[in-house]
């Protein structure tokens, strides 16, 4: 009985999917690198939001230490949200998106690579900058590792969910605020478990459960979000 | 009947404001959800009728 697909054919198909992933990732990273402001704006916003809280409420170390986990997380969430609009917009405007949709390449892989590239230029820098904010908001040192790990697990999920909103609104001229409205309710579980992880780290409680939940949400997002994003892209571009 | 007199009924054992406010809001929302489609239907009919008349006149 002949094999339907030979080993060589199957191997080269896997390779080409992987090649597609890397190619899209490299392209998006290179394009993002050229517009450095897209990288720095969310970071500056992140820093500013965290500055607003002491200014607007109280600079008392006790108060700030208590709200620090939540403030850093909310700031990271808002900064991610702010950067989501640019995910598909430039490709949409110059027609690349339409070409991508028409090509026989699996859209799931392309979308995943684009979101990963976007996260590497937004969520990852936020995660790396977070300890600085922690220090500014008097987050106890025990909380730092919890903060970074929770953001490391949580920000990719935020990027994936935000990409759904970006895909739904890419065809609209003013998509920006609408993305926030669509996506914020979906962000709430990630926010709740992310901040709880940091608070547990501060009080010395075990973190494994929180990371497991955040990881589970990331896994779910990894598998399901690209489906929704692809569907939304097809609808937005054809509409 | 749970109440001895009409004034007792309105007072609701001290919680009258809350009970009546809730039922009033409920009534408002029920009315809005019925009246709004009815008004829209009238508007749709008048708009379409106007367009039909315009088409007939121009043809």
């Amino acid at each position: 009985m002949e094999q339907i697909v030979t080993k060589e054919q199957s191997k080269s198909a896997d390779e080409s999917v992987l090649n597609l992933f890397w190619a899209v990732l490299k392209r998006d990273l290179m394009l993002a690198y050229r517009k450095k402001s897209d990288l720095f704006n969310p970071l500056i916003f992140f820093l500013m939001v965290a500055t607003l809280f002491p200014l607007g409420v109280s600079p008392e170390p006790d108060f700030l230490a208590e709200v620090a986990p939540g403030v850093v997380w909310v700031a990271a969430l808002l900064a991610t949200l702010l950067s989501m609009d640019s995910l598909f917009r430039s490709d949409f405007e110059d027609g690349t998106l339409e070409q991508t949709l028409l090509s026989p390449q699996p859209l799931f892989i392309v979308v995943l690579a684009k979101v990963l590239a976007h996260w590497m230029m937004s969520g990852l820098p936020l995660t790396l900058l977070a300890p600085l904010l922690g220090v500014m908001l008097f987050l106890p040192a025990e909380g730092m590792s919890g903060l970074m790990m929770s953001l490391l697990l949580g920000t990719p999920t935020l990027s994936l969910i935000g990409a759904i909103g970006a895909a739904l609104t890419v065809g609209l001229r003013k998509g920006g605020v609408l993305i926030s409205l669509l996506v914020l309710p979906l962000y709430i579980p990630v926010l709740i478990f992310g901040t709880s992880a940091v608070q547990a780290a501060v009080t010395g409680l075990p973190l494994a459960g929180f990371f497991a939940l955040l990881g589970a949400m990331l896994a779910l997002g990894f598998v399901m979000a690209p489906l929704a994003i692809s569907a939304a892209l097809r609808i937005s571009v054809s509409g | 009947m749970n109440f001895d007199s009409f004034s007792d009924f309105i007072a609701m054992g001290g919680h009258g404001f809350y009970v009546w406010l809730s039922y009033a809001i409920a009534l408002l929302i029920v009315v809005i959800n019925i009246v709004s489609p009815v008004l829209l239907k009238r508007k749709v009919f008048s708009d379409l009728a106007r367009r039909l008349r315009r088409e007939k006149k121009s043809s």
Partner: protein
Amino acid sequence: MSEKKKWLPRWFYQLASPRWSYDIMGKLLPGFALVALISLVVGTIWALLYAPADYQQGNSFRIIYIHVPSAILAQSCYMLMAVAGAIGLIWKMKVADMVAKSCAPIGATMAILALATGAIWGKPTWGSWWVWDARLTSMLILLFLYLGVVALHSAIESEATAAQSAAVLALVGLVNIPIIKYSVDWWNTLHQPATFKLTERPAMAPEMWMPLLVMVIGFYCFFAVSLMMRTRNEILIRERRSSWVKELVGKQ
């Protein structure tokens, strides 16, 4: 020629015709309206006059007869919106799209009613106008999901595209609702003392759940009436160029 086995009942395919749907909804409207009116009037009188007051909360307990039905409706409406959206997405059925679009504003008002009555109930019960209780917070998030769907519909000009996008959004929201519920519940146990319970009660006495049942039925029928009216309007607007609509308008 043998007939291929139909996977779905005939009326499902008939619903695809906007004209047929318009007519059938027109026939169903008076019946549902009558049942709604009777149930709501009887239920309200029963709730206000004949149902017993709670021995702990007194007469403010009567708010439950509005709060619980509106909360149930807000959740059921979202399910219907997501299912109708999915049907429109999969089978490209225009009427399903229109039903989904019509669900959104009604569901949003139900959520608002549930939130308002929940907050009003909170004042005499716990002394404050708002509590970050798990159920109220989940209902607030549900309201945001509804408002997102409404906003998406109004932002996209093409009706067909708007319906498809809103369907995707509604389905993503549907998948998230259990996750949101779980996380808000969990967050609530962390931050609220365990004594705060809104509608968690031991088995209700029949004197209490019977008027509640009547109110729930009344609310469902009222929802059906409002939904059918809105959907019929959508059908008229979307099908305005077809001959049967022109004929209908001409008759007025």
